[in-house]
């Protein structure tokens, strides 16, 4: 054990003295998360694709003309004028609409309540109802567009309600002239519209199954989690590459001439990689909390996810090293492997759970599982909610390490 710690400590100290490596491991993910977070949060000059909106019109009411207020709102969302901005699909109920967002098929679900027409067209000015906007947190721009359109429709309904309420109030005092009625209605529309109307928007983001108290995930948090896992791979590769560096420098063969077993030497190397990326993750988690105010979730889940992510990164880094001959080869091949895994696993799209083909492909990568774990944890999930997001990557880590040890032993035996 002393020898394992000695090897790990030596490598850690060497990494700590390597400023470029530290910058890559710590500053790059923070900077990228900050930049992408601001970009997603603040819009910008990007061309925006039409936002996919799922509508569930649960409105039961009807007007004399036969059209419900909910149908009017749904109709506005699906109008030809907004076709380039919103791509609307109708869902049978609220759960189906939310599921479409959960699966990543749609960015926003607009759920119109059953009593919508009753409140809008009803005689009670104090009646209230709420249209629900269920949003993917990383699709802030699309969410804002949908919110704006729905909000505008509700504002007009509110104004009409206010005007009608004012006119009714005057009628109760007698039979005022039409001009007075019109003036009062206009005043009610402009001064009271939307304030007393009781029509409101409720914004929500996807929640843990069965947990209605789940927290929202910040965009920066979602992105930093993706960047953290991605750069943990590079951090691990950087330390693991010392095996090849030491082989070339002659210190690894010399280690093999000491009364130190292959297992201890490899164990020391694995420990140094594991500890380095764990420290990297801890620093990023703390920095994310302090700089961006990210709530990572429950400590037990955060600790377990961090350790499993470090295990995956370490095992994969050793496997890449075992398959390559030179540090340059390891750098090139490793970068390719990590980039493909990140693209397939979804490191660049934050932690939001995706559906469809991408959601299936994502599950073939350890980082895909880890990102789902982070998403769940940031929403307040605990160990019970992420057991598969821990066990599957752990399986990957063990498999990577096993094959790496086989390869390395064969190579140096």
């Amino acid at each position: 054990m002393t020898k394992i710690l000695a090897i790990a400590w030596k490598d850690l100290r060497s990494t700590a003295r390597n400023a470029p490596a530290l910058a890559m491991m710590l500053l790059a993910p923070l900077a990228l998360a900050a930049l992408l977070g601001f970009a997603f949060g603040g819009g910008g000059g990007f061309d925006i694709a039409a936002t996919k909106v799922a509508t569930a019109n649960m409105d039961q009411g009807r007007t004399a003309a036969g059209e419900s207020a909910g149908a009017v709102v749904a109709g506005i969302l699906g109008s030809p004028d907004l076709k380039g901005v919103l791509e609307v699909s109708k869902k049978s109920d609220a759960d189906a609409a939310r599921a479409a967002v959960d699966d990543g098929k749609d960015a926003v679900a607009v759920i119109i309540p059953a009593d919508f027409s009753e409140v809008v067209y009803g005689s009670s000015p104090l009646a209230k109802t709420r249209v629900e906007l269920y949003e993917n947190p990383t699709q802030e721009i699309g969410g804002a567009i949908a919110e704006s359109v729905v909000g505008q429709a509700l504002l007009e309904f509110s104004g009409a309600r206010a005007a009608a309420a004012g006119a009714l109030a005057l009628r109760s005092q007698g039979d005022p002239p039409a001009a007075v009625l019109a003036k009062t209605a206009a005043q009610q529309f402009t001064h009271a519209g939307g304030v007393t109307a009781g029509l409101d928007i409720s914004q929500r983001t996807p929640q843990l199954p069965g947990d209605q108290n789940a927290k929202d995930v910040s965009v920066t948090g979602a992105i930093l989690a993706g960047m953290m896992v991605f750069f943990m791979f590079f951090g691990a590769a950087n330390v693991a590459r010392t095996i090849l560096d030491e082989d070339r420098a002659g210190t690894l063969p010399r280690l093999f001439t000491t009364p130190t077993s292959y297992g201890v030497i490899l164990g020391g190397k694995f420990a140094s990689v594991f500890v380095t990326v764990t420290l990297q993750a801890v620093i990023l988690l703390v920095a994310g909390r302090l700089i961006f105010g990210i709530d990572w979730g429950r400590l037990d889940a955060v600790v377990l996810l961090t350790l499993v992510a470090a295990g995956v990164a370490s095992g994969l880094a050793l496997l890449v090293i075992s398959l390559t001959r030179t540090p340059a080869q390891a750098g090139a091949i490793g970068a390719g492997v990590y980039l493909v895994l990140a693209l397939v696993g979804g490191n660049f799209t934050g932690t939001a759970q995706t559906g469809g083909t991408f959601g299936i492909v994502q599950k073939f990568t350890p980082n895909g599982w880890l990102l789902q774990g982070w998403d769940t944890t940031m929403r307040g999930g605990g160990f019970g909610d992420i057991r598969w997001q821990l066990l599957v990557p752990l399986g990957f880590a063990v498999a990577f390490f096993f094959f790496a040890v086989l390869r390395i032993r064969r190579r140096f035996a």
Partner: protein
Amino acid sequence: MNIVEVQELRKQYDPPKGVLALDGVSFDIAEGEIFSLLGPNGAGKSTAISTLSCLLRPSGGDARVAGHSVVREAQAVKEVIGVVPQDIALYPDMSARENLVFWGRMYGLSGDALGKRVDEILELITLVDRQKDRVEKFSGGMKRRVNIGVALLHRPKVLYLDEPTVGIDPQSRRSILDGILALRDQGMTILYTTHYMAEAQELSDRIGIVDHGKMIATGTHEELVKVVGEGARVTARVDHYLEGMAERWREVKGVEKVDLEEDEAVLLTEDPNEVLPRLFEAAAAAGARITEINVTEPNLEMVFLHLTGRALRE
């Protein structure tokens, strides 16, 4: 008593078609002896060291170090050997002391014993004043000294040195050679590889000459020189009449053989001191003048040439 016994050691890289680096090498090293493996680059010296260090698994044969087989008891062998590799194998971003402490731990030392031993080694390699400096700032000779110091940390019974003086200045070389002789005087057994004939001749109690993976001769310097079966070699040039002079020199007492090689005569004699004046007299008598004359005592270079038909430096 032999502390190292090598029997028919074979090592082939990437069998069955790879290079046969060791081809049935056998030799013994007595306890407290300096045994040198002498041979040109690529002869198999480093492969022999690597195999005896348990770094490479032999393709055939075996070797016992302090009674332990390098094939079956690698861990026990590693306990009793210290290995000084040909290239500097240290951590350049660590100080001399940090390197010694780390390697000491790898040899199983710890605590006060480790600290005390590191102090002793730093004194031995005369780097006490520079112990906190990073190795990357050291000269080649200083790095070599630390490189050797690492192998001495655990007081090995047998020390392997693989060409430890390659590429260093004469002063550092002298210091290292003196250090090796001092270690031998303290009772340490040393296996030394070199392609420098003079080093092997100066240091070694016995020498093994290797070429193309085979041990072609072993023995003391004197024993090996006798293998050549000839005395000193005198090469001479004259201003004219070389063939005639060669005939006259064949008649000189003490000259055993005369050959003509291009523009010089090559003579063999057991006693050059006695023969040289006679050669000058014979030349004067023939009206010729000796313009250049060289005497070469029998040496390992000649032994290698005699055994392989090639010069050692080739």
